[in-house]
């Protein structure tokens, strides 16, 4: 026996090592914060509303939602193992302390700016170079919205939700809760009661938003929940591409994130909504991490309107999220492109609902699940065709890639068709990265970890290609980080 002989590593061990990437965004920032102490009751709801200087109608909205929430139990139908959550142990509001509301970037807390820089979101640079308008939400409060002046010239409103409530109360009141009612589900009710901030976008008739609008969410303070609320309205023949990025520091305890995104798309308008979600996923043993319980839904109200969801989900300990489209307008189009990666002890139950109400509506679903370690990854989808919806088309492609023998991939597709003219297609595949593929890459000089990243990115390409350029690069790196080990 040759002593120096290269010992072929057990394949599962190689992949295990290659998929044990460290979380790169796990720093906390030492920023002064205003926090409402943990606990939830009507007084807390009132206090949040008061801190934000909200009008009475919004407080009433919150209280109604809160009272309804009290009657609910957390949902248990998802393929998730969710430890009991003590909703009284969470702080529902944390805001970076303001000295005097910053009016320019120079006045923003340098530590805060540094936080965003470390996230790879240099506000300053983005402002100058990329032509992207950025709103950054730290914990609960929107910190800064760039490019507002330029957008305002076109009549586009892009601001924090709180500001919108004060500055555009009629618009907010008209649309708030119209797509996701507070009665929709447990977390929607909770969010409606305690939502802290988020982004508001209004694109007026016939306006094509000339730049990508972008929001970065970050949970920073310990023991806080984040409940942001995003509302996007695209009026007739308007167009906007909206990007959402999420990160959170490493913490031992779990953090709750329960957001609502509502989108309204009017006649011949188009909204593209892209998410790169990288909340802290917990450590290899499943300690800590964010619970990401999100309700995202868009209403294609106008004829020939279009809503496209693209999501790259790599973070969170538990993800429960189904960005959906209600296709009400005649000939409206819904799309859902998703890559969901789970590793270690992560759990994801994600997918979409395409509700075809209008005639000649079409929808496309492309879901790519990637599971590694001991994770569980589920696709859950509903394609529903109403009785009066003629000529509906749906195409669903649902692929799972398994990187270990200990992970799980599941699909729960429901197809509910009440009109016989509908054409609904569903394709599904499950595959593994084979030893042959790894060896082929190795023989060409590509080390195993790099080979896995290459193959996974290739597998997810169809979805990644839907992301705007800057985001695609970031998302590709994220996939590699999530799945690559700490290469020496």
């Amino acid at each position, binding site marked *: 026996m*040759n002593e120096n002989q290269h010992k072929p590593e057990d394949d599962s061990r190689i992949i295990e090592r290659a998929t044990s990437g460290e979380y790169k965004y796990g720093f906390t920032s030492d920023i002064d914060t205003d926090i409402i102490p943990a606990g939830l009751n009507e007084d807390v709801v009132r206090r949040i509303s008061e801190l934000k200087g909200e009008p009475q109608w919004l407080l009433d909205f919150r209280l109604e939602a809160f009272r309804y929430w009290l009657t609910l139990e957390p949902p248990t139908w998802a393929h998730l193992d969710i430890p009991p959550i003590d909703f009284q142990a969470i702080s529902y509001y944390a805001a970076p302390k303001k000295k005097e509301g910053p009016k320019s970037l120079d006045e923003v807390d340098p530590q805060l700016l540094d936080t965003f820089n470390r996230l790879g979101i240099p506000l300053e640079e983005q402002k100058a170079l990329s032509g992207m308008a950025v709103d950054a939400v730290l914990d609960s409060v929107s910190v800064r919205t760039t490019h507002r002046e330029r957008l305002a010239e076109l009549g586009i409103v892009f601001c924090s939700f709180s500001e919108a409530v004060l500055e555009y109360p009629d618009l907010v009141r008209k649309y708030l809760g119209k797509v996701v009612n507070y009665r929709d589900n447990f977390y929607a009710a909770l969010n409606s009661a305690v939502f802290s901030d988020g982004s508001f976008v209004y694109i007026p008739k016939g306006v094509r938003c000339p730049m990508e609008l972008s929001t970065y969410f970050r949970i920073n303070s310990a023991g806080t929940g984040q409940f942001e609320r995003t509302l996007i309205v695209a009026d007739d023949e308007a167009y906007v591409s909206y990007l959402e990025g999420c990160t959170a520091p490493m913490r031992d305890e779990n953090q709750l994130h329960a957001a609502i995104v509502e989108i309204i798309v009017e006649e011949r308008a188009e909204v593209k909504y892209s998410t790169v979600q990288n909340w802290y996923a917990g450590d290899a043993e499943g300690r800590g991490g964010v619970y990401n319980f999100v309700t995202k839904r868009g209403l294609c109200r106008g004829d020939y309107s279009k809503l496209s969801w693209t999501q790259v989900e790599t973070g969170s300990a538990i993800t429960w999220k189904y960005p959906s489209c209600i296709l009400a307008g005649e000939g409206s189009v819904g799309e859902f492109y998703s890559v969901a990666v789970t590793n270690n002890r992560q759990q994801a139950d994600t997918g979409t609902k395409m509700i075809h109400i209008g005639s000649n509506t079409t929808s496309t679903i492309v879901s790519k699940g990637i599971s590694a370690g001991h994770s569980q990854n589920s696709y859950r989808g509903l394609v529903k065709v109403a009785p009066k919806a003629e000529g509906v088309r749906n195409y669903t492609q649902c692929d799972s890639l398994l990187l270990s023998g200990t992970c799980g991939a599941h699909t729960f597709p429901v197809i509910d068709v009440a009109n016989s003219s509908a054409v609904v297609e569903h394709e599904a595949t499950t595959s593994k990265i084979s030893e042959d593929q790894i060896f082929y890459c190795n*023989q060409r000089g590509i080390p*195993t970890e790099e080979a896995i990243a290459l193959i996974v990115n290739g597998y997810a390409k169809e979805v990644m290609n839907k992301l705007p350029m800057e985001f695609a690069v970031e998302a590709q790196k994220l996939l590699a980080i999530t799945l690559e080990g700490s290469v020496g």
Partner: protein
Amino acid sequence: MEDLLKVENLRAGIDGKEILRGINLTVRPGEVHAIMGPNGSGKSTLSGVLAGDPRFTVLGGSATLAGVDLLGLSPEDRSHEGLFLSFQYPVEIPGVTMVNFMRAAINAKRKYLGLEPMSAADFLKTMRQKRAVVELDNKLASRSVNEGFSGGEKKRNEIFQMAMLEPRVAILDETDSGLDIDALRIVAGGVNKLKTDQNATIVITHYQRLLDYIKPDFVHILYKGRIVHTGGPELALELEEKGYDWIKQEVDNEQI
């Protein structure tokens, strides 16, 4: 002249079964060696073991490439040291484009050699030049690795990768299998164009046919895990005429 590849008393097996039972082979720069033999004689095992295929276990002996102990290296480092294997069954990697695949390969090698990654412009230029060697068109770059390739295209793609990586020793495992005469000519032509007096080629084949195009300096006959005969090109012709039975008889009689 320095030996490029030196294999001494190499023994290896799979699942506890010994397949290679003491291989000796010396390859010098500029040489072309053909390894022939009946089915199950260990030809593909030999190429797999040299390249570091983890399915095989080395049981003894040694193999060096330009003095470097191959058996102590990972498969990727063997590649970086200049060993190339043209697969009998090239593997499909859906979604990974040839351009991304080759870039990863080239840059991994450059990293190993302490060089900066190749610029995109240089890389694409190199790719253009090298695909011409095996007459592959410009669609190659954007196609997924071997996915949807015809049998002939897969083998041409192997030789294209060999051209890109410029190995010191290339092992062509049954590169002629499944090729029609035109594809065979293109593949063999590619191999011949890549030949220099610095590198060497080992052609593993069943048939004399490929050797009409790639002229070997030595022909080895592998049988029951050993090289039982070594000769010049005429040995291949003799095999073509007489088959393997006389070899088998000769060896089996000796063993009795």
